[in-house]
C-alpha cells in the first residue's frame, strides 16, 4: 500500500479513460458505460433516482440542482470548482446548485477494478485538470438529454432547441420547459453515440467568475463535518502508542494501569512493518480502545511499553548531514548528462560552486489524522479524511483480506492535505483495531502523533556547480544531490530509480545550458518520507533560484535580467515529467517581469532593505514571487511586502486560485522560517507546534498582492504551483537587504547569528 506513486499513475491512466468495461475511448464517453449513463434499469418511477441524470446530477422538483463532487475537498476548492464545470455546461443558475460529496466508486472487473465515477484522488495539482473535460462533459451530456426530452415532448427537432439557465427553449412552435419537468423523461433516454458539444469560452457564465466556497456557511457556523467529527452507532474511540524509535518494536508492555482508567475497554499490540518493507502502517505500537477520546488518551498515558529500539536506533541528523557531505565528495549516479560538462567547466572563465541544505519537514494539516472503521465478517465501512480514497480501499483490503468491492469508503471534508493524506496508513490502523475488537471505532491521532509519525518531505544536501564564459553566459551546470529519496521503501522500487522522485531532468535550466549534468546519491536513513506539497520542486526551486542570484552577484549581473536572458521568449519545450508534455519558459519571463514591476524592483532602497525574486514551473503551472524585506543590524527580519503571481492558464475558479496562491506563499514562508524535523538516537525530536512552528498572522504582511495572469483556454493545476518560488524569493530579498546569503533552511537563528558575527 501507501504507494502514492502507484496511486498517481493509476489516476493518470484511469482519469483519461472513463473506463468501466474493457473498452475505453480516451477523452470521450463510452456509450452506456460512461459515468453519466442513464442506467434505466436502476431507475424506479417515483424514486429519487428518477430525478437523476447519471451519477452526478439530480434536479429536484423545485428546480434546485444537486451536483455530485467525486473528489476529496482538502481546502483546494474542488468542491466548488468541479460543480462549476458541471453547472456551466448543464446551464443552470449557480444559486440553485448544492453539492453532494460522492463516496469512492469502484467496480470489479475481470482484471481488477475500474472507476465508477471517474478517477478519484487529489494530488499533484490534478484535481481540476484531470476532471476539466470529464466534468464539463457530464454537464453537457445532461443538457443534451434535456434538450432531446423537450424536443420529443414538443415534437420538434432537437436542433431547434437550446437552453437558458434552467430551461430548454424550443422554437416553432415556441415553448420553454423547465429542467425539472423534463428530468424524468431525460433520464429514460438512451445516450446518443456522440460526445456532447461543449460551450465556447465566450459563452461562459460560471467558469472564470469569482464565486464563493460552497461550504463556507457551514464552516463559519461549525456545521461542516470533517473526518474527526464522525460519530456512528456503537462507536468506540482508539489511540495508538507508536514506537518513538524509527523501526522500533514493542518488546513488551504493561497495561495494568491503563486498564484501570475509567472508560478504557481494551489494550493490545499492533504489529508494524518490517524495516525496509513497504509501509502499510508506519510503526509498531499498542492500541488503546475506550468509550471516549479522552479516556483513550489517558489510557495511553498510563501504559508502560518496553520498546526495542530496532535497527535505526543510531540514526541521527548530524550523522545524516555528514554522510551527505561525504557522499558528495565521491561520484554518484549520473542521471542526466547533456554535452560535455567536464570540458565546459575546464574551459569556463568563471566557475562557481555552492551547497544548499534542505531539511526534513512535516505536513501538519490542522486536522490530525483520524479514521472511522467498522470491519465485519464480510464487509467493511471506512469514513476517512483522505486525499486518496482508492488507497484507503486498498489499505483496508490489505488489512482485512476483504474484497475491495465489499469495502465502502466514505469521503469527508478534509482538514488539510499537503500530501500527507495521499498515504492511508491511519486507515489501515483503524481497520486493524476494528478487526481486532469487532467494534466500530474511530482512531484519533494527537498532534504529537502527527509530528512524530509522518511521511516527511525528503531532506537533502544539494551542490550546484556552474561555469560561465567571459560574457557571463552559463555554459555548464550540474546539480549533485545527496538525499533521502521519497521512493525509499516503495513497493517494487529498484535502487537505481530512487533519484526519480528528487531530480526532474527536464526542469529548468536543462535545455538552457548546453552542458548539463544531474547526479544523485541516496541516503538510506530510517526516516519515512513522502509527498509534500510540490514534491521535488519544493526544494529544487530554492536551490536553483538561490544559485541564480549568486551567479548574478558573482559576475556583476542583475538577478532579474539574468533570468530574463536565460528564460527568454515564449516557446514550447519538451517536458517529460509530471505537468508536461511541454514547458513554456516565456510564461515565467512574463511573471517575473510582472512581479518585479509591481514591487518597483528597480527602485533604489536604503541599506537594510531589499527585494528578491524567484520563479518556477511546477506540475504544469507557472508562478513567481517578489519579496521586499528589511533586516536590522541585529538580524531582525521583517517581510514588508509580497507580490505573488500565478499563470494557471484559464483560472476556472479565480477565488480559489487566489486563495491557493496566498496559502502556498504563506506555506513557503512558514517552512523557510522555522520548520525542521531532526532525529537523534533514532527518534524524531519535535512533537508539537512549540518546536515545529507554523507561521502566524504576524509573519505575513498586510501588503500582500496575489495576482492571476490569464493565459489561454486550458486550466493547469493550482494547489502546489505557488509554493516553490516563495522561499527563494524571500532569501534572495534577505541577501539584497543584508548581504547575508542563506543556504540552509530553515532560517531559524542564522540571520541573527550572521549579523552578530
Amino acid at each position: 500500500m501507501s504507494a502514492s506513486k502507484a496511486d498517481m499513475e493509476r489516476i493518470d491512466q484511469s482519469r483519461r479513460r472513463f473506463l468501466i468495461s474493457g473498452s475505453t475511448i480516451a477523452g470521450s464517453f463510452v456509450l452506456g458505460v460512461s459515468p453519466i449513463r442513464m442506467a434505466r434499469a436502476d431507475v424506479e418511477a417515483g424514486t429519487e433516482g428518477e430525478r437523476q441524470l447519471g451519477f452526478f446530477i439530480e434536479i429536484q422538483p423545485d428546480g434546485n440542482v444537486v451536483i455530485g463532487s467525486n473528489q476529496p475537498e482538502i481546502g483546494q476548492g474542488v468542491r466548488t470548482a468541479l460543480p462549476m464545470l458541471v453547472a456551466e455546461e448543464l446551464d443552470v443558475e449557480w444559486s440553485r446548485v448544492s453539492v453532494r460529496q460522492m463516496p469512492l466508486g469502484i467496480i470489479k472487473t475481470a482484471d481488477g477494478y475500474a472507476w465508477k465515477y471517474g478517477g478519484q484522488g487529489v494530488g499533484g495539482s490534478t484535481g481540476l485538470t484531470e476532471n476539466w473535460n470529464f466534468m464539463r462533459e457530464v454537464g453537457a451530456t445532461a443538457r443534451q438529454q434535456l434538450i432531446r426530452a423537450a424536443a420529443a415532448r414538443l415534437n420538434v427537432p432537437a436542433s431547434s432547441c437550446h437552453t437558458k439557465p434552467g430551461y430548454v427553449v424550443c422554437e416553432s412552435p415556441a415553448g420553454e420547459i423547465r429542467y425539472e419537468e423534463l428530468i424524468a423523461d431525460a433520464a429514460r433516454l438512451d445516450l446518443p453515440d456522440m460526445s456532447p458539444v461543449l460551450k465556447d469560452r465566450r459563452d461562459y457564465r460560471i467558469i472564470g467568475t469569482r464565486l464563493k466556497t460552497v461550504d463556507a456557511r457551514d464552516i463559519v457556523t461549525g456545521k461542516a463535518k470533517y473526518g474527526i467529527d464522525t460519530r456512528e452507532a456503537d462507536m468506540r474511540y482508539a489511540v495508538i502508542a507508536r514506537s518513538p524509535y524509527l523501526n522500533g518494536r514493542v518488546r513488551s508492555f504493561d497495561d495494568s494501569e491503563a486498564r484501570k482508567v475509567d472508560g478504557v475497554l481494551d489494550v493490545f499490540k499492533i504489529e508494524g512493518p518490517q524495516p525496509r518493507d513497504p509501509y502499510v502502517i508506519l510503526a509498531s505500537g499498542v492500541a488503546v480502545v475506550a468509550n471516549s477520546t479522552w479516556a483513550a488518551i489517558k489510557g495511553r498515558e498510563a501504559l508502560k511499553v518496553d520498546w526495542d529500539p530496532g535497527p535505526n536506533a543510531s540514526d541521527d541528523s548530524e550523522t545524516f548531514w555528514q554522510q551527505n557531505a561525504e557522499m558528495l565528495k565521491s561520484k554518484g549516479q549520473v542521471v542526466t548528462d547533456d554535452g560535455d560538462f567536464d570540458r565546459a567547466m575546464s574551459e569556463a572563465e568563471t566557475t562557481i560552486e555552492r551547497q544548499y541544505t534542505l531539511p526534513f519537514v512535516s505536513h501538519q494539516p490542522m486536522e490530525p489524522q483520524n479514521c472511522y472503521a467498522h470491519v465485519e465478517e464480510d464487509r467493511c465501512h471506512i469514513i476517512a479524511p483522505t486525499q486518496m480514497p482508492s488507497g484507503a480501499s486498498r489499505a483496508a483490503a490489505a488489512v482485512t483480506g476483504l474484497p475491495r468491492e465489499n469495502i465502502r469508503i466514505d469521503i469527508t471534508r478534509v482538514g488539510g492535505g499537503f500530501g500527507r493524506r495521499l498515504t492511508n496508513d491511519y486507515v489501515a490502523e483503524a481497520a486493524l483495531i476494528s478487526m481486532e475488537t469487532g467494534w466500530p471505532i474511530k482512531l484519533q491521532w494527537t498532534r504529537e502523533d502527527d509530528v512524530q509519525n509522518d511521511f516527511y518531505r525528503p531532506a537533502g544536501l544539494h551542490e550546484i556547480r556552474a561555469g560561465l564564459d567571459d560574457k557571463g553566459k552559463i555554459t555548464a551546470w550540474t546539480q549533485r544531490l545527496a538525499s533521502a529519496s521519497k521512493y525509499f521503501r516503495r513497493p517494487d522500487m529498484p535502487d537505481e530509480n530512487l533519484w526519480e522522485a528528487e531530480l526532474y531532468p527536464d526542469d529548468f535550466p536543462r535545455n538552457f545550458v548546453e552542458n548539463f549534468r544531474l547526479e544523485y546519491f541516496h541516503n538510506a536513513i530510517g526516516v519515512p518520507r513522502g509527498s509534500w506539497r510540490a514534491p521535488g520542486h519544493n526544494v529544487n526551486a530554492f536551490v536553483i533560484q538561490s544559485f541564480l542570484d549568486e551567479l548574478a552577484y558573482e559576475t556583476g549581473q542583475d538577478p532579474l535580467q539574468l533570468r530574463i536572458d536565460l528564460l527568454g521568449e515564449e516557446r514550447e519545450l519538451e517536458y517529460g515529467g509530471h505537468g508536461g508534455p511541454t514547458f513554456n519558459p516565456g510564461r515565467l519571463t512574463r511573471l517575473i517581469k510582472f512581479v518585479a514591476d509591481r514591487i518597483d524592483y528597480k527602485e533604489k532602497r536604503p541599506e537594510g532593505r531589499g527585494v528578491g525574486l524567484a520563479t518556477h514551473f511546477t506540475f504544469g503551472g507557472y508562478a513567481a514571487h517578489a519579496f521586499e524585506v528589511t533586516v536590522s543590524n541585529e538580524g531582525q527580519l521583517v517581510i514588508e511586502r509580497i507580490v505573488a503571481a500565478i499563470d494557471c492558464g484559464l483560472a476556472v475558479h479565480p477565488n480559489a486560485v487566489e486563495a491557493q496562491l496566498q496559502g502556498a506563499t504563506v506555506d513557503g514562508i512558514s517552512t523557510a522560517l522555522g520548520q525542521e524535523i531532526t532525529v537523534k538516537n533514532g527518534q524524531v525530536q519535535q512533537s508539537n507546534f512549540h518546536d515545529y512552528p507554523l507561521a502566524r498572522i504576524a509573519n505575513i504582511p498586510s501588503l500582500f498582492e496575489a495576482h492571476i495572469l490569464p493565459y489561454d483556454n486550458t486550466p493547469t493545476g493550482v494547489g502546489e504551483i505557488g509554493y516553490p518560488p516563495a522561499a527563494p524569493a524571500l532569501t534572495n530579498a534577505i541577501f539584497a537587504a543584508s548581504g547575508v546569503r542563506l543556504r540552509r533552511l530553515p532560517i531559524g537563528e542564522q540571520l541573527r547569528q550572521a549579523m552578530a558575527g
Partner: protein
Amino acid sequence: MISFTVNNQAASFDGDTNTPLLWVLRDHLQLTGTKFGCGAGLCGACTVHIDGRAMTSCRMRVSSVAGKNVTTIEGLAAADGELHPVQKAWLEIDVPQCGYCQAGQIMATTDFLNKFPKPTDEDIDNNLSGMICRCGTYPRIRKAIHRAAEITEAGE
C-alpha cells in the same frame, strides 16, 4: 457532576472532571464545531468563549467551567439564525480553505473585536498570533477582521 451552560442551554457532565472541555463538547455533547488541533494550547483551533472571553478548551478541565457560560461556534449566531458580524465578514471575504481552524479563528476574533473595535494591523498581529491556519488564509483573515469591525460599527 459538573453543570454549566453551553450556547444558552443547560449542560452537565458526570465523567472524569479532569476531562478537557474540548472533549466534553465534542464527544459527549456532540458539538463538533470546536476543533482539536494541538491539545496544548498552541494553535487556537479549540477556542470557545467562557463567559464571553475567548479561551482554548483543549487543556481547560471541565471542572473549571462549572456554573459558567460556554459559547461555541454553533452558538455564535443569533437565535433567529442571523450570523454574527464576524461570521458575516468571514463569508463576505470567503476566508476558509480547508476550514478546519476557522471556528477557532472566528471565536478568537469576536472577543478580540470587543476589546479592539477598530483594530490596526499591529493590534491584529499582537493579539491574534496565538492562532494557526495551516492553509495560510491569513491575508483574508486580516481583511475579514477589518471588515467585521466595519460591519459591527455600521450595524449591518
